């Protein structure tokens, strides 16, 4: 095992390759998890406070507009630019801008509004009739979300997360370049700067395999959730 890890593949050690794969998984995994939580909250706020939503009134309209504008603004900034712009902010909360953990800050900031839009679309697939039935049953807002809105749209939401995860994989490659490590880091520092073309191609193959796996997994879970529709 030791020998294998120290042996080289296209000019780098296997152990290095595995470490970078691990870093990519770390960044994508955590950013997806935290981003989903934030994205789901933003999406719920958007769906509940929109015109004709469950929560109505002046306050609802203000909240909707604030969240809506926030999501649009963050989504309109390209990731590389977002990455460098918020560096002071990243340093403030993480103490550093280097490393996979520090990269999580821009990744989460980038992916959560994106996921919010995708999840919002999923939530809107829930028929208004279901929501009306829920209200007629005497469900409060929390219960409408928990027993009707989310379970009804879970299958679609998983597909949304799959799309989000793949977008995140792309972003993590850029984050790595600024000191996060990961597959993208390998491709750029060894493949591009040191002109190691075979290694660059290997990283592309690895990324393709990652995307395929994510898509396969997401599709399978979604199908299972929608089994009886």
């Amino acid at each position, binding site marked *: 095992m030791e020998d294998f890890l120290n042996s080289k593949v296209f000019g780098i050690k296997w152990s290095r390759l595995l470490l970078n794969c691990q870093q990519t998984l770390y960044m994508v995994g955590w950013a997806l998890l935290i981003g989903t939580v934030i994205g789901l909250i933003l999406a719920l706020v958007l769906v509940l406070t929109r015109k004709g939503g469950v929560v109505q009134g002046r306050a609802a309209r203000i909240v909707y507009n604030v969240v809506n504008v926030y999501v649009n603004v963050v989504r309109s900034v390209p990731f590389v630019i977002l990455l460098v712009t918020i560096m002071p902010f990243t340093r403030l909360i993480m103490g550093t801008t280097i490393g996979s953990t520090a990269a999580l800050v821009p990744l989460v900031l980038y992916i959560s509004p994106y996921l919010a839009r995708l999840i919002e679309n999923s939530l809107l697939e829930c*028929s208004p*009739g*279901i929501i*009306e*039935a829920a*209200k*007629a*049953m*005497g*469900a*409060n807002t929390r*219960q409408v979300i928990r*027993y*009707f809105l989310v*379970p*009804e749209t879970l*299958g679609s939401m998983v597909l949304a997360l799959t799309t989000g995860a793949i977008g995140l994989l792309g972003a993590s490659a850029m984050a790595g370049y600024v000191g996060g490590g990961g597959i993208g880091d390998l491709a750029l520092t060894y493949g591009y700067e040191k002109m190691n073309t075979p290694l660059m191609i290997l990283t592309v193959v690895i990324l393709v395999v990652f995307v395929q796996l994510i898509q396969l997994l997401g599709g399978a879970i979604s199908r299972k*959730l*929608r*089994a*009886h*529709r």
Partner: protein
Amino acid sequence: MIDIEHVSRTFREKKTEVRALRDVSIHVDRGEIYGIVGFSGAGKSTLIRMVNRLETPDEGTVRVAGQDLSGLKGSALHAMRRRIGMVFQQFNLLEGKTVYHNVAIPLILEHRSKAEIEKRVAEVLEFVELSDKRDAYVSQLSGGQKQRVGIARALATNPEILLCDEATSALDPQTTESILKLLKRVNGEMGITILLITHQMQVIQMICDRVAVMEHGQVVEEGAVLDVFGRPKEEVTKRFVRTVINDQVPETFYDTIRAENRHYRLEQLKFIGDSVNEPVIANLCRREGLEVNIIGANISQMQGSMMSVFILQLIGETERIEEAEDYIDASGALRQRLFIDWDSRTITEIPAGKGAD
């Protein structure tokens, strides 16, 4: 049980204004089945949603079991809604879940214990005759079965009132009939007050005690079903009644009627319930100097009572016919003179009409 008084509601959408309800008042008594009939856009959907506050009135008050709904908020509102079940045209079930889960949901919302939920779901499924479908997924059911699940779900919390929003409009005629029978049982066996809206007069005919007819956001006619069917006043009501009771002269008979060159009058006779105790038509036939030609006949059953409509061509001298008209009027039957305009082939009715020929 349900008192809606002087309720108005206007929807404003940018520049257009839709007055969905204008000064509507209806009163539903405890234990009755009350039907609201109207074409789409008449305002009945908005009206029924006032009862569980899915809609709020701009003006007027809505009281349920004596309680004014206007001040209700938060948990008091949710508690009130749990006392009112609702059934929908599109069922609004969780398609990907089992029948059991769908019926259990209102009980889960009330935080009932698992054993309690099991027991109650079994009871209501038994009532709607779907015990064998307990673990089936809703998507595997037929329309009629889905509506039974919808009704079971509405009954789960033991409501006092059941609101039916076009509950049978998405179903075929046979299934409609079985669902109506079920609703009748809900009313009879459980004593639940039912308020329903529909555009199918057949629904009113089969199960309702009282009916209100709506048009352009207003209640234009209201009363006991037998009265409204027997003596419809407004044009829209007449149109609805005609969808289930044919009181028209069949067009194929026009030529037969016209070919009669002796003196005649066309009369429509209605017999409602047991208001007439004599064989009117048989007696007419026995009259001297009068010939009776039956052009049309229709008998319909409603609310355990009967209503029959006959269209007669009375042939004879004016004096004989007028004597016969007096006899009909005295018998208790409802009589209308019919005039056919041969050019436009339309019929006008003159209630208890006499007048010249």
